[in-house]
């Protein structure tokens, strides 16, 4: 690497003369790589295409020839899936996801505000709790958590999902929001407090609005997590009426038996919201997932 750096000046002199370097041309090795990339593309794209095309087939059509395209698209599969329970699961997922976002952002932003703005006894401890919390997975706390959920009498309610989801998202969100809060210039809050603004108003009218990008990133990360969460949802929820999409689909599979077209239609409906969200806000999505991974 150091060699490369030394020769940088030299490189700049010669670079104009080499507009097409030999390395930019196709080599046998890169041809193999291209074939590999296209195979990988098909490996991902075909099953997804298969999911959609078979969601429009009848059971007989699927059984007879799993590779064939639908002869006569069965749009009713989507209506059936929706009426067979997907509507309920879908609304539950929306409700749980939005509540988790609201509760997590609320708690994490308040906590971050205290950590970023005040020096107080125990702030290091709280910071450590968040750092450590990012590394803890729910799998290793599941049994006592189940007992606590039962003891609080929130087992088999929406809260049995919303509250643990929030608790396990807080650490990462505090790390993200806190580091954004730390970049807000001190002069802003000082002049505001000289004007007689209360701490809460400074939080509400300066810190939150100035951190919109990171808050949006957090919302996406939480939505991604809450929409797909399975472990808590399958353990803390028994009743059909509270099931979210990930656990509800398991029920649907058992209920529909061999009505595969309808099941595949239900699966397609379930996958759509996040895919649409991704295409609408690709930049935020990728920024969020990168920040989440690196912080975690």
């Amino acid at each position, binding site marked *: 690497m150091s060699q*490369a750096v030394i020769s940088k000046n030299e490189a700049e002199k010669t670079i104009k003369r080499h507009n097409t370097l030999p390395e930019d041309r196709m080599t046998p090795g890169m041809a193999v790589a291209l074939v590999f990339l296209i195979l990988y593309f098909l490996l991902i794209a075909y099953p997804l295409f298969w999911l959609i095309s078979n969601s429009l087939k009848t059971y007989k059509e699927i059984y007879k020839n799993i590779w064939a395209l639908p002869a006569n698209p069965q749009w009713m599969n989507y209506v059936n899936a929706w009426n067979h329970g997907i509507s309920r699961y879908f609304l539950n997922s929306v409700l749980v996801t939005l509540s988790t976002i609201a509760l997590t952002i609320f708690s994490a932003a308040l906590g971050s505000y205290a950590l970023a703005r005040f*020096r107080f006894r125990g702030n290091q401890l709280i910071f450590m709790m968040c750092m450590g919390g990012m590394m803890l997975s729910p799998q290793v706390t599941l049994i006592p958590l189940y007992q606590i959920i039962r003891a609080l009498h929130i087992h088999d309610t929406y809260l049995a999902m919303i509250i643990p989801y929030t608790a396990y998202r807080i650490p990462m969100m505090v790390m993200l929001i806190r580091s954004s809060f730390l970049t807000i210039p001190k002069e802003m809050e000082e002049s505001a407090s000289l004007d007689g603004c209360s701490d809460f108003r400074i939080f509400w009218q300066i810190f939150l609005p100035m951190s919109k990008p990171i808050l949006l990133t957090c919302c996406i990360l939480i939505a991604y997590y809450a929409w797909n969460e399975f472990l808590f949802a399958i353990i803390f929820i028994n009743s059909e009426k509270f099931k979210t999409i990930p656990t509800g689909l398991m029920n649907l599979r058992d209920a529909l038996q061999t009505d595969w077209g309808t099941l595949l239609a239900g699966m397609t409906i379930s996958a759509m919201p996040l895919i649409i969200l991704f295409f609408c806000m690709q930049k935020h999505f990728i920024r969020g997932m990168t920040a989440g991974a690196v912080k975690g």
Partner: protein
Amino acid sequence: MQSRRAGMNVMTPYVYVLPCVILLGVFVYIPLVANFYYSAFSFSALSPTKSFVGLQNYKTLVSDPVVGTALINNIWYCIISVAIQVLLALVIASLLEDKLFSKISTVLRTTYFLPVLISMTVVALLFSFVYHPKIGLINAALKFFGMKNPPAWTGDPKTAIFSAIIMSQWHSTGYTTMLFIVAIQGISEDLYEAAEIDGANRLQRFWHITVPQVREMMFVTMVTTVTGAFLVFNDVYILTQGGPGNASTTLAVYMYRNAFNLDKMGYASTIAVVMLIICMALAIIQNTAFRSGKGD
């Protein structure tokens, strides 16, 4: 950061951090500690009393053949996931960032990322069609090419865990690929240009520039992949339920089975302790290796 202003209540910061502290305390840290305590007892989910058994659960665990099976499955999960989601993903990312493929790279990387957005329930249900012994996509193709007795995939104890592992790679490789793409985009162009002038070929540039420059991201993906492999639950539980028998069980699935099917909550907590210890030990080892390698 200011310590105190006139009129500011000493308690103010504590009010702000209260929601975080309560949620983290009650739903993350108390369960974490309680889990160790529970592992010394034998009890069922609904019984009001627990009987103290000391280290008996740990003794049972050491001689439990299913724990051995689970551990081996987790290790396979880890090895294959590191090979594909860390090493291969880095190669894929650097190919996608190659000038030669710049025209197709956006389509490819977006497609590779799509499975990441889909919940594991949908993915596993989709793969139950891919692996279906009679009509499944794979076996339909194998039969077409003349194979008389294609494997039963999820139905065969020998192939069940690998079916889950392959599905998991299908689902998650796009995620680490995306992380590596972001990391590679952060590398200065000058380094590559200089190396090109020096006559370094693609392989040398990959090895001497890309790899050292994305070291940190490799460490991050490595730790998350390894930890994820030893905690894996959703993928296996939804696809095979750990079966046939216990052939494809993992530590987390076996913990779930003990807690919620066999009602051995104490033993399940013991398995959770083992999972926690394994993950922490591996994280410490990787962290040490990463730091000691930093000097060169």
